[in-house]
């Protein structure tokens, strides 16, 4: 089945779902679920929270679907709902004393020549410190491979905002990586 046929099928499903067809919506949810999960997991860094965000986005999508004017925009539209739901999840957990952070076991860690475990840990901490809007920009840029103009379109933000968020996110990640490269002062401080 070609891409164009896929698109047409999707549009039909979206239109049926807009008319209240729950089965059509179920097919859409199963078709898009993996992609939404991939994005949410990369933003939120946690399977449980990502699942919550996806579930929330799907339910909101169903409810708001009649208000989607252009069925061809369903992909971008539901991504936007998802990112908003992810923001909510992320902010929910941005508390001041969350001093215990244990990564969930997300399945096997694949062979990873590009990044050492230490690098990954370092990136993980740096990324978790970013506000959710900057996290989303990094995921859309480096995971989905979108340009700021496309991201602006999908997230409904001005292009300038997308660019500046990306700039700050890059700067923060760079600082996180480099901060760790200097020796850590432990004199008198390292727990014995």
């Amino acid at each position, binding site marked *: 089945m070609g891409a164009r046929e896929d698109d047409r099928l999707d549009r039909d499903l979206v239109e049926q779902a807009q008319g209240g067809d729950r089965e059509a919506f179920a097919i859409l949810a199963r078709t898009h679920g993996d992609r939404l999960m991939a994005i949410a997991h990369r933003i939120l860094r946690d399977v449980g929270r990502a699942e919550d965000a996806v579930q929330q986005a799907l339910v909101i999508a169903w409810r708001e679907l009649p208000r989607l004017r252009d069925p061809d925009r369903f992909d971008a539209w539901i991504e936007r709902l998802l990112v908003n739901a992810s923001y909510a999840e992320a*902010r929910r957990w941005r508390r001041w004393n969350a001093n215990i952070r244990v990564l969930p076991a997300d399945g096997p860690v694949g062979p*990873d020549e590009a990044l050492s475990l230490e690098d990954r840990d370092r990136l993980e901490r740096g990324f978790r*410190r970013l506000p959710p809007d900057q996290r989303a920009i990094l995921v859309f840029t480096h995971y989905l491979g979108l340009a700021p103009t496309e991201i602006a379109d999908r997230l*409904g933000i001005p292009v300038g905002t997308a660019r500046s968020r990306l700039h700050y996110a890059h700067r923060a990640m760079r600082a996180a990586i480099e901060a760790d490269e200097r020796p850590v002062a432990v004199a008198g401080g390292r727990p014995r």
Partner: protein
Amino acid sequence: MTDQRELDRILGAFFAEGTDELADRVIDAALDQVGRTSQRRAMRVPRKLLAMPMPARLAAVAVIGVVAVGAALLVARPGQPVVGVPSPAPGLIASPSAPTSPSAAPSPSVVPPRAPSWTATGSMIEGRGGHTATLLADGTVLVAGSDAGSASAELYHPGSGSWTSAGSMTQRRMAPSAARLPDGKVLVAGGACCGVAAAPLASDELYDPATGSWTPTGSMGTPRGGQTATLLPDGRVLVVGGYSGAEAGGVLASAELYDPGNGTWSPTGSMGTPRAQDTATLLADGKVLVAGGAGTSAELYDPGTGTWSATGSMATARFGHTATLLPDGQVLVAGGWDVNHAVAAAELYDPGTGSWSAAGSMATPRAFHTSTLLPDGSVLVAGGDGPLASAELYDPQSGTWTATASMSTPRAYHTATLLPDGRVLVAGGMTGQPNGRASAELYDPGSPGPSSEVPSATASVVQPKPAMFAYVRSSYHTGQLWIANADGTGAHQLFPDLAGSQGAPSWSPDGRLVFSLTPIGALGDPTGASRLYLTDASGSGPQLVDTGCVAPCMGDSDAAFSNDGTRLVLVRTTWSPNASVLETIDLSTGRVTELASTTVSDASGNFHGYGAADYHPRWSPDGTQIVFTQDVPRDTPAPPPGWETIGPVPAIFVVDADGRNLRRIGLPAQAADWSPDGTRIVFGSASLVVIHSLAAPGWLRQYYDIYTVRPDGSDLRRLTSDRFSKDPSWTADGRIRFDRVPMVDGDVNTEKPPQLWIMDADGSNAKQLSVSPLPASLPLSWSPQP
């Protein structure tokens, strides 16, 4: 240096890893929910664009009677718990220095409800009508402009009830627009000058509350008077329509944006219909609803795209009406002039459907009145052309209008401003004379519950006892413990950086600090999680506290000493079972008492990976009870109709020190503290409750207000209603210290330095304390005081 290509490569590899599959149970759960959820059907209202010409009489009244919008538009409070009206009165809070004794208390323990009332307050220096009034960050109100074309400005001080001069604008203006910018300055734009043949102005100026001075800023592209000004979430100001004086009919369709960054204006499209004396309302989704001003039509402005689009039309043509954003996201439009008479009818705009519905009728037709959202969610409508002295309340819950107390003076083209203490300041109004009224009055919404006299309106000098606060600064992989003086001066780091991530500190009665530390590498390693350390305020090396944390104990955090220093309360996380446990340790005997335990597993039994579900335990002064925060399931309590919460919410619990009598009190809240006499608990509410408008998915509101409650959960009182006050703690002399968080982009911004404030235990006499910026990391932990 990491160059961009290297960074791109690293981030690409970083994001390559992760889950790419959505578990079927999630889809099933979503579809199950979908099966019980009906779709939101868009109601398409046939839109008639009535290009209604402005009636001649309107041209005569020209540019008077602007509804000042702007800062006031940011006061929508979705999810605000309904706990009765904020009371400016001290109520029954026991004097902290004199513990209550039911038999000895001279005052009755229950005071009848206080009826809503108007009371006179100081008069303005100058009579005004068609002016603007803007609440400033410090709680004072800036009034500028006048129908008499005055250049002067004044400040109202709610504490003393007095008015002082706020200098003079560089230009006389009648009916300008005003908007408070995120940096606290006020943009006063346009208006007309002077006399009967007044010509609209393009010039603008900025009032700086820090210096009390006015300075000109860039000019609008088009002279305007009687326009609206709306502060957008990104800090820009949208100015719409108004009278130009020049063109036929003299009414503008154009709109302009003010950028506070560079002080310049730029055009941002045009409405489909020219409008003046319309209303502009910032909606929860960031769009701006512009209604009336010409016929029945309404339009939406999208700041993201800078475009205008039509939305549903009202049933009644209006100008000189009011529009008020309700807590549920709908907009109440009331009164105004139809073609040739004032109207009583009100309508509600639903942003979800873009449609209008009837919202009953006021008892009296009103135009050029004021409308104010009160802290309890009702809307106060006062005065109007006539002029009228009467006032009415709209209750969004029941959709009904009821009369409330009348003003002492009939007013129209006046201003109404909600003060931080919940009262409404009404000032000025046209009289038909060259000068407007100078008098002002205050509306007190009253109190449904116990209360007492309004405190005397005298300013008091705040002299806090010396104290210090401690806080954590976390940089990458390092923890730093800092302390500073109460005013933010003298901040210094206690000892060299620790390798690890640090938890919030708390003080022991003898001035030491206990905190938790999660060492580097603990990420993903359940056996290497956080431990407790103790240090003294001179910064000697931290000592590990042996709390006996061995498997399945994963770590301890959030420790606090009892006031006699003999016991420690702490939060312990364990695996197998995955639990967050609140427990006390007797430091002399090592005896452990478990007070509360809650599971931290997700629905499928997996450890969810973000640690404790209990936070910030604090001992009562007598050591018999502990107040703490615990995550509870979502939708507890149920949000108001049209809103839903996502994820668990933090709630306050109190438990006896022996583990008995666990009870939930108060509202969703992050951290609580005891009054020095142990009779009340203060907390900042709603800080972590993330609320989704069904109409605008993802719009976040994190507002912070401060409440007190008795330890048994009774007598809940709201102390602040500014929605950015948080992290309260009680001082030894019975006042409440708290932080005010800056507003940025229409939301509180916890990444900017907060300001430290103090107020009396009843919420009165709030004053700013800090003289230098506070650390952004919160909360501050206060030292015990002499």
